[in-house]
């Protein structure tokens, strides 16, 4: 039993935190968001570092590391609220990597690993991030089956979402377009779901840290507001929500790598992570706005980027309600053999 990263994984996390701290400051995030553009320099640098391919198999040009390393990078990009197509691209790569046919993998994974192309994954009834620029779209239909579409095969309508740090779109494709993933769609989506949960953990962590810095500094009645229990207990709750989501998310990333316990094991772990991280991400970022007081409600303060990212991420691949329902179905299924 060891619920800690390896030394290499700690190093990846530290390096990512430092790099993004200098390369993707909140000023840069703001500049990209207000210009409705991406930080192309940042993406180029991430590609040079091999980040998009970190969890893609070496035979397809990736680094061949696992879901844990990918979760670490996703968490750090969430912490930075980076304006980048990273998350959408790795979500597509995870799905194709685990459930794509050999042809699908050979066609798309090298492009995604090298950063020559970006990808995305989402459902027909939700916002799909970065779909307009994506070369490959893994689209989950109403029946839960995921299809692999080239950009030309998809009908993409860009949408201004509430989160201007990331591009969004509605995506539709007639059933005859593209082809289904070769393997289990649910397992593919589960792996992508873990990546989104990890980003939410990073977003929550940043919101907590920004809030702590603010409430230690801001004084009212000659006292730092963080000394008042109405505020400090809210911060304690933010820590609890963040750490709870983190426990569930790291567990799910480990489950994705370990491959133990069959498909239901990862299904449960990923739904657990997404339910916890969706709730945690939304609650913690909302609390961050509240704890910042009037300033927190202004465009000028940066906490709203976190709140908006959390809202969109929370809905992406199912909000907490969807995942709680799935957990209940898995629990019920577990009872069936006993009943029979």
């Amino acid at each position, binding site marked *: 039993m060891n*619920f800690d990263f390896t030394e290499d994984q700690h190093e990846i996390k530290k390096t990512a935190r430092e790099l993004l701290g200098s390369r993707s400051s909140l000023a840069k995030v703001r500049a990209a968001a207000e210009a409705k553009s991406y930080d192309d320099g940042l993406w180029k640098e991430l590609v040079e570092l091999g980040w998009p391919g970190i969890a893609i198999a070496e035979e397809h040009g990736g680094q061949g590391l696992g879901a844990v390393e990918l979760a670490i990078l996703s968490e750090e990009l969430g912490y930075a609220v980076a304006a980048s197509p990273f998350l959408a691209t790795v979500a597509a790569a995870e799905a194709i990597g685990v459930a794509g046919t050999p042809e699908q993998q050979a066609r798309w994974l090298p492009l995604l690993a090298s950063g020559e192309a970006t990808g995305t994954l989402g459902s027909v009834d939700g916002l799909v991030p970065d779909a307009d620029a994506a070369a490959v779209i893994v689209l989950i239909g109403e029946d839960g089956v995921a299809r692999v579409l080239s950009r030309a095969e998809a009908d993409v309508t860009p949408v201004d979402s509430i989160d201007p740090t990331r591009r969004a779109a509605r995506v539709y494709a007639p059933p005859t377009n593209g082809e289904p993933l070769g393997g289990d769609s649910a397992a593919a989506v589960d792996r992508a779901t873990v990546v989104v949960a990890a980003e939410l953990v990073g977003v929550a962590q940043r919101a907590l840290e920004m809030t702590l810095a603010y409430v*230690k500094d801001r004084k009212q009645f000659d006292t730092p507001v*963080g000394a008042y229990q109405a505020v400090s207990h809210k911060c304690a709750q933010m820590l609890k929500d963040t750490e*709870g989501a983190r426990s569930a998310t790291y567990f799910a990333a*480990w489950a994705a790598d*370990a491959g133990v316990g069959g498909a239901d094991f990862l299904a449960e772990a990923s739904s657990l992570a997404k339910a916890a991280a969706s709730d945690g991400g939304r609650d913690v970022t909302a609390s961050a706005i509240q704890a910042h007081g009037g300033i927190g409600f202004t465009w000028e303060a940066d906490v709203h980027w976190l709140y908006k990212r959390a809202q969109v991420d929370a809905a992406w691949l199912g909000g907490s309600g969807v995942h709680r*329902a799935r957990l*209940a179905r898995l*629990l019920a299924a577990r009872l069936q053999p006993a009943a029979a």
Partner: protein
Amino acid sequence: MDLTFSDSEAAFRDELRAWFATNDPGVEPSGDDAAYAWRRDWQRRLAEGGWAGVHWPREYGGRGATMTESAIFFEELGRARAPLPANVLGLLLAGPTIMTYGTDEQKERYLSPILTADEVWCQGFSEPDAGSDLAALKTKAVKDGDEWVVTGQKVWTSGAQHSKWCMLVARTDFDAPKHKGLTYFLMDMEQEGVEIRPLVQITGEPEFNELFIDGARIPDENVLGGIGNGWKVALTTLMNERSGLAFFLQVRLRQLLDELIEEAAQRGLLDDAVVADRLGYLHMKAEILRLTAYRGLTTIEKYGTPGPEGSLTKWMWSETNQELAQFAADLLGADALTAGNRWAYELMRSRGNTIEGGTTEILKNIVAERVLGLPRLKGAA
């Protein structure tokens, strides 16, 4: 990261399960004295099997288990639906505190009877006017020759009526700042001057007591950790309070949730969207508790000090246990409101969870100050 158990940990669990399979404590008898005797006999069996002081070092008669093995022990104890041993406060609190601060003579004298439950311990910390603000306690100990004479009142003293010894914190210096004037004593409960009155809780059971101390005498040699050092020694006791027990409670919560899911299934309610949502929610919270407890364990084993997650599990457990009991009342209706029903019992007993062993409010203060580094409000200590 490897969330599987090592071969030796798995072997430890297997050995334990085999032992529990052939050592069934049976059903708890009714009546306080009978229930106590049952738990005392259970501890004796554990001690004979070498399982009473699992986390105690071998030199003190323990098994010398790692923290993970100790967690496994408490999980398996819960899974076997076995009770906590009668002398749980001795095993978890008094023993480790004596190991840390005791003289060789004290270790020699007190540790062994703790393991066998020949001498049971209770905890004399809280007072009517010193709860969360423990250091404000007023029970006083005055030197008289080579003895101390104690006067005061303690409260929430679980198991006092069965105890031979009390971990007593009393004020020995009234001029010193409140944290500095305290001394930790090992007080003999079997003497005049110690009066125990049962305190009935909202379940109707007398789980704990009031302790009226009037002229009780404690010899000098029963000071633990030095005069005036009581606050530091008491903190050691409190640090131990939340260790292995978390895993026992976590498993018990899981069992309760699984039983509730069965109840929902028997009523054909698993397809009901509202029921499914609540069960999914409780399952999520139970899993977060379990996983966070394991994360905390890894941090302590690997780095020697608890991480931010370590101070969250008691809060998570108590909150979830209450939510679970409350949902049971929604799900089961009249049954859960009928006296004698086990869910009705949970509905009442769980209210204590967010108070006993540190209120949630105090836990939030601790998180805010020690983990998050937020400033302390003037006047609060």
